[in-house]
């Protein structure tokens, strides 16, 4: 490092001496912008061919000594670069035109950068500007509703927790259903360092979103690369899309010092209406009478009848007990500067968010520095260093469904007395328990670039990225039953190292043929070391680590796992006059995770583009600025999640027999699988990029068809082999096809004082299972509601999407006995549950699918489906957003929205509640209730009045009798429409006028305010239709997504 600083110093000295030696003509002038005619500070003014330069001051003035025949180059971000001949003048005024189009922007495809205009890949670029200052720990939340083809769903609002992020549909299928493996995630490439969330997830102790380690305000651009043209170069890791994140670099010009801070609050969520006190008592008694008749009052529990008992005559609102309004604050500080020779940027960040649930919160401290140094005209180095620390307070548990102790149906009746001591305990419980989730991440990147010949560049890049995650937990004896203190410390150190050698050649053949050719070699090695230490029986409650534990209470394990990937790849780009475009890539990956006989995988892609608007015959159509057709086809893949998937390891940690450690093969992973290989994904993409009316309207349309085949599947094995299952490539294939549409418009003329830009995007994805293992036999899976364990059935069937819910159809409630079907052969009434419950009025109408005059949720012999039918699809078909930004003079206003359409969800919160109330009078009495009259339970007297017309929403709920699990989610009773439209954020900004900031001696100053999660419009009765897990379940136990409001100021010096 000191070396780098020395070089910086030398370089400055050199610049000064050059200036002294060659002073000839002194030129001064002012640079203004064409948009508002005001001077622009910080514009880089360079002598062409000489690389010397200065920057304009706060008044847009510059002063430079040049040869009298020099050409000056004026450049500034957001403006078109302009060249002016000096011609002996000493005073030059320059007006820079605003650059309207992003088409000259550069995108990174694999290992080379191309003009966005000439790329043949489907890439969406999000500028850091679009998401800056959003009060969120991680940028993925901020992308919601902004990118076509990307589905981001926040099923938990807990600060710093990872939510879902899938690109172009889901392809993950597992019969062992859990939220972590529910959806496929893309590969993230952060400043050239590939990061796999699923690999990191294998060794996670904290459940913290590692992407939250990136300060949102450090991000220059985020590219979401979707088709094979862009992702095949990532080979065996690119199947689920690639997200390339580039952090900010300095712009040429004088050093910029930036200070930015915002602060605000996450608001206590609105509580659900709950009946308390006498209202609850009256409601419950009336309800029981209404459902069961007057006679049912006889057996009421004391809690309900004894309204004078001080233990039972309270009106406690349990919901309110745990929530609070949390504070958020964030500070960013950065210094950036660049000359022709050195480009540096340092930034510091502190982010602190308190959760709306007591005991939860998230803190980030981060540091990042990027330095590029041109050592000689041919040789340059790039050094990026970053560090982040994430401290997450998980509250009561790391598991998203255990954070809220009174979630779902666990809310007790308001009758219970709640003393101040109890309240203290609820709030202080978290203080007594020490539960620290910490993620420390370092990245060191060094790149050496050597220009061997003009056009021939050699790059060596190396990076190392250690990340440490640890969960330190201790709970004193007072919190445990039996009262014994315990502590544990689980920690993982995951080090990912990466080396690239890239040789690229760019040339022009003749005047019109552009060729770019690149070969690369890459090696990546991921090593994880873990330590788990658990101590039971800590001798004193003040010891919050593992010390002093008796030998019998101590367990410790360490582990080491490593995976390596060796790759060779080539990329070729050819274009003719930048009009006919052709790209091809080929990558070969050898992975340590593949079986011995299938070490290598090969991933080719080809893509082509045609810029029609450059044709002569289109030139006359002036309103078309750009019309590009492009298409791509290619193959990429997925690696196994497990590092040692092809090996059958022996398990020696299963305990002892007669004092000898038990050693058996791991019967759950089968035997050594030499044939294990990658999952190939073939993807076709056809797209149109177009700009109209002088780039005021930008349209991007894509159609894609993506087929993932030979997928991993865990086969159950024949019992007599001893082995129970084995994961292998199988006949399973999944298709995702869809359509993406994105339009950006500048709605008003560029000369207008009011500027209004609009972005509208939507994606339609259709997910389909194309083939299944074992001759396309259906696969059944059960997912247990994370809060209560109630099971929901899923079916995987060829031709249907993944995760289709399998249920008994529910169509209403029987009002009279005569409506109940009778078996014409036996004269018996329709029954439920294997003949145990002859159907009566007030019972749900469940369709007897198999026609045996009995309905139950289990399978019947010879017919796995029984009375179940595929009933609901939790995969959202359409997602998108509608975003508007306005600027007027110094004011700005932005409104971001997102929507999800065509999605089925299950309200298991309601299912759990009803089930609890129905399962006996005591449960009904001791549970908290909303207003029972508004729910729509079947009412016997209403049914008697109007037997044909009365349509109750839910069956009779009689806590005293007739409980046969009817409120379990095995029927469609609790299915709801999961569509929603959400105003995700509103931001307003005000830039202080130049006069004032100049007077203050600063470059600029902007004030802003943000509102997050402003409003949701939905049909579902659940509190928030977005807060649904990937299986379509709303259990009411996850962390609410709070509304946030912040105000901030950003100052540039």
């Amino acid at each position, binding site marked *: 490092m000191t070396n780098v600083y020395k070089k910086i110093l030398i370089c400055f000295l050199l610049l000064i001496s050059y200036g002294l030696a060659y002073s000839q003509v002194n030129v001064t002038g002012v640079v203004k912008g064409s948009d508002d005619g005001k001077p622009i500070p910080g514009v880089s003014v360079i002598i062409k061919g000489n690389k010397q330069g200065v920057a304009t001051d706060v008044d847009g003035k510059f002063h430079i000594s040049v040869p009298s025949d020099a050409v000056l180059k004026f450049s500034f971000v957001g403006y078109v670069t302009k060249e002016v001949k000096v011609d002996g003048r000493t005073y030059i005024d320059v007006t820079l035109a605003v650059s309207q189009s992003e088409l000259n922007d550069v995108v990174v495809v694999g290992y080379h950068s191309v003009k966005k205009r000439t790329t043949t890949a489907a890439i969406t670029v999000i500028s850091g500007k679009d998401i800056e200052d959003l009060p969120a720990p991680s940028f993925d939340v901020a992308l919601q509703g902004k990118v076509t083809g990307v589905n981001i769903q926040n099923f938990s609002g807990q600060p710093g927790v990872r939510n879902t992020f899938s690109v172009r549909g889901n392809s993950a299928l597992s019969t062992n259903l859990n939220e972590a493996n529910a959806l496929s995630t893309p590969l993230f490439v952060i400043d050239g360092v590939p990061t796999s969330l699923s690999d990191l997830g294998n060794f996670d102790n904290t459940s913290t979103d590692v992407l939250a380690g990136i300060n949102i305000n450090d991000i220059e651009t985020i590219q979401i690369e979707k088709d094979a043209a862009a992702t095949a170069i990532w080979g065996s890791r690119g199947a689920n899309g690639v997200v390339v994140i580039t952090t900010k670099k300095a712009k040429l010009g004088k050093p910029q010092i930036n200070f930015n801070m915002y602060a605000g609050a996450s608001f206590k969520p609105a509580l659900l209406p709950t009946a308390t006190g006498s209202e609850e008592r009256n409601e419950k008694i009336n309800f029981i009478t209404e459902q069961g008749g007057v006679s049912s009052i006889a057996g009421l529990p004391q809690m309900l009848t004894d309204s004078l008992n001080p233990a039972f005559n309270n009106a406690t609102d349990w919901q309110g007990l745990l929530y609070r309004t949390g504070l958020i604050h964030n500070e960013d500080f950065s210094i950036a500067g660049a000359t022709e020779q050195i480009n540096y940027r340092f930034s510091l960040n502190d982010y602190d968010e308190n959760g709306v649930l007591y005991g939860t919160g998230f803190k980030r401290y981060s540091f990042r520095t990027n330095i590029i140094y041109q*050592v000689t005209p041919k040789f340059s180095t790039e050094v990026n260093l970053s560090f982040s620390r994430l401290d997450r307070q998980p509250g009561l548990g790391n598991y998203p469904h255990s954070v809220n102790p009174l979630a779902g149906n666990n809310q007790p009746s308001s009758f219970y007395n709640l003393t101040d001591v109890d309240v203290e305990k609820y709030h202080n419980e978290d203080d007594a328990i020490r539960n620290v989730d910490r993620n420390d991440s370092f990245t060191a990147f060094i790149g050496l670039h050597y220009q061997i010949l003009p056009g021939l560049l*050699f790059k*060596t890049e190396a990076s190392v990225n250690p990340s440490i995650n640890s969960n330190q937990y201790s709970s004193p004896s007072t919190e445990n039953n039996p009262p014994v203190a315990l502590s544990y410390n689980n920690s993982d150190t995951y080090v990912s190292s990466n080396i690239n050698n890239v040789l690229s050649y760019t040339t022009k053949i003749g005047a019109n043929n552009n060729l770019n050719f690149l070969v690369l070699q890459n090696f990546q090695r991921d090593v994880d070391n873990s330590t788990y230490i658990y101590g039971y029986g800590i001798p004193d409650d003040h010891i919050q680590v593992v010390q002093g534990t008796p030998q019998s209470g101590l367990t410790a394990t360490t582990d080491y796992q490593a995976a390596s990937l060796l790759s060779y790849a080539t990329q070729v780009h050819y274009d003719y006059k930048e009009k006919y475009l052709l790209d091809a890539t080929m990558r070969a990956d050898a992975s340590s995770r593949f079986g011995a006989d299938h070490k290598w995988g090969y991933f080719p892609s080809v893509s082509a583009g045609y810029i029609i608007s450059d044709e002569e015959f289109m030139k006359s159509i002036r309103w078309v600025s750009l019309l590009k057709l492009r298409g791509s086809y290619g193959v990429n893949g997925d690696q196994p999640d497990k590092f040692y998937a092809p*090996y059958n390891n*022996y398990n020696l940690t*299963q305990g002892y027999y007669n004092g000898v450690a*038990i050693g*058996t093969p791991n019967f759950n992973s089968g035997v050594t699988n030499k044939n294990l290989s990658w999952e190939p994904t073939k993807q076709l993409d056809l797209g149109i990029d177009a700009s109209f009316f002088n780039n005021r309207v930008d349209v991007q349309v894509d159609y894609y068809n993506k087929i993932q085949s030979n997928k991993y599947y865990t086969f159950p094995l024949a019992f007599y*082999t001893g082995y129970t299952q084995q994961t292998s490539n199988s006949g399973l294939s999944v298709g995702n096809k869809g359509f993406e549409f994105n339009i950006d418009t500048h709605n008003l003329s560029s000369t207008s004082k009011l500027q209004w830009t609009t972005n509208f995007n939507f994606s339609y994805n259709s997910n389909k299972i194309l083939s299944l293992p074992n001759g396309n036999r259906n696969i059944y899976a059960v997912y247990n509601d994370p809060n209560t364990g109630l099971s929901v059935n899923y079916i995987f069937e060829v031709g249907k999407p993944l995760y289709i819910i399998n249920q008994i159809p529910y169509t209403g409630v029987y009002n009279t006995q005569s409506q109940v079907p009778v078996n014409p052969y036996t004269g018996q009434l329709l029954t439920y549950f294997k003949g145990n419950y002859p159907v009566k009025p007030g019972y749900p109408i469940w369709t007897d699918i198999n026609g045996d005059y009995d309905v139950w949720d289990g399978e019947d012999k010879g017919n796995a489906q029984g009375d179940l039918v595929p009933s609901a699809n939790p995969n959202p078909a359409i997602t998108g957003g509608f975003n508007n930004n306005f600027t007027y003079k110094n004011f700005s206003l932005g409104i971001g929205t997102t929507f999800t359409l065509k999605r089925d969800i299950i309200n298991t919160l309601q299912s759990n509640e009803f089930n609890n109330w129905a399962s006996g009078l005591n449960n009904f009495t001791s549970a908290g209730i909303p207003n029972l009259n508004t729910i729509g339970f079947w009412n016997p007297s209403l049914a008697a009045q109007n037997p044909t017309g009365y349509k109750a929403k839910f069956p009779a709920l009689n806590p005293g009798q007739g409980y046969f699990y009817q409120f379990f989610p095995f029927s469609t009773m609790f299915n709801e429409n999961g569509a929603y439209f959400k105003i995700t954020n509103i931001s307003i900004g005000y830039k202080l006028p130049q006069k004032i900031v100049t007077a203050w001696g600063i470059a600029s100053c902007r004030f802003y305010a943000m509102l997050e999660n402003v409003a949701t419009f939905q049909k579902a009765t659940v509190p928030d239709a977005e807060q649904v897990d990937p299986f379509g379940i709303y259990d009411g136990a996850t962390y609410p997504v709070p509304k946030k409001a912040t105000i901030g100021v950003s100052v540039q010096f």
Partner: protein
Amino acid sequence: MKTYINKYYILLLLCSLGLIASCKKYINEGPIDSPTNDNFWTTERAAESGLAGAYGLLRTALTNSRAYFVFGDATADEFIFNGNNWTLSDLASDYNFNFAYEPYEEEVNDWTPFYQAISQCNLILSKVPAIPASGFTDDPTTTKNQILGEAYFVRAYCYYYISQVWGQPVIVTQAYTDPINAQPIARSTTAAGFAQAASDLAASIKLLPYGYTNPADVAVQASRGAAFALLAKTYLWQKQYKQASDAADSVIMNGGYTLEAGAMYGNIFKGHDKESIFEINMLYSPNQNEAQNGEYDPTTGQTGVFAQFLAEPFIAGKDPQSIWNVNLDLVNHLFDTTAAGKKKDVRINATFYGLHSDVTQMIKYANVIYQQPAQQTQPFVSNNMVLLRLADTYLVKAEADVNLGNIGDAAINLNMVRTRAGLKPVNIANGKTMLYAIMDERGREFYGEGTWYFDLYRSGLIFDAGYDTAIDGYLPARAGNDNAGFQWPLDLRTLLPQDPLLTQNPYWALASQN
């Protein structure tokens, strides 16, 4: 400066080339956190670990879902299920011992755990002979023979047990290397299952010595005595009574076992007893614990297999509603519980607690150890599960002798057991009556030891109208090898998809149509 850079550049290039060479090694890197198929079977220690694995898997198979006691005792009406044990209530005589509906007790209809133990034995038998002599610290031949002999014994026990519980086993003696492509195998006959057990035991007898050199191994590892004892029982099933009687003789004459004193009856189940021939080690040890939890374990959702019988005062704070209640009708029928003092059967107090209360507990396995003795929390039940013991061999020999017509010899062996229990010797001349007496004696001696149901069913007395202990509910229609109604149904939904040749036991195939 330029040459300086070039030097660096060349150095860098060389480094990166060097790296490529080492990459190859990394690409083929295997795990270091556990052995794999390729490197495990190379040492004596590994072979012993593997053998411990075979015993451990057998232990798991017998204790999962309390299978050993469900199969051997619950089916013989020894216990009454209510409260938390409603999942087993269909096993009661009121429900005609319906084996087909045991919700949440999947293991009783799934023999996979036994096949895992068999698979482990097959691995040992195929891998251990190839371990080089250099891998042994003890004498290679003796150690190999010991390990192989014990593996044969465990495999024999599995086939024996499968044959008596489900019947018609799928017989596998090879170690699978490519299970995903395993060919479907049909079930063999029950007779073939017992024959497999007998042949494995013959191999075991050849390889194993009588007795033990290490006291810690007594009874918890197989010996020649154990192999003969199991062989005697196998011959009984095969109705080869002469061989059964001879095999039992070998145990009695050469095994070195002696009956525990009547006053010390409870010691039999505390581990390594002189009477015990083969038992599953489940003793508590603070550091290498093999004992099961003494209370309901919320993480597994199960109660430890012995704790299932126990409540207060044996396990502090345990709810009496949670246990298997002893069937007092049967106890009163088998035992003279009103007898007092010296005339009383010593087994009554050693087996039951609270006979005159609402909650009668079976207390053969009641050696409770608290990990936190001061607070009486974290209980473990430190008893061994005795599968074969000398009293059993005496009665096996008696049963064989009755069938051979040697009523007098049968009486001698029966009276060995009776005398120890403090009962008067019997003198019976009629063969049938003698068999009834032996079965009653077995009922008293092995109450709660997972065996009486099989004795009743093997001897046919379970539906013998003349035997007044015959348990209500077992209809003769369930009898017969063709019908297999005394054997358990298989969970075909789980097992059939991977073995399309698998068939259901005929009685249950019909019954489940209902």
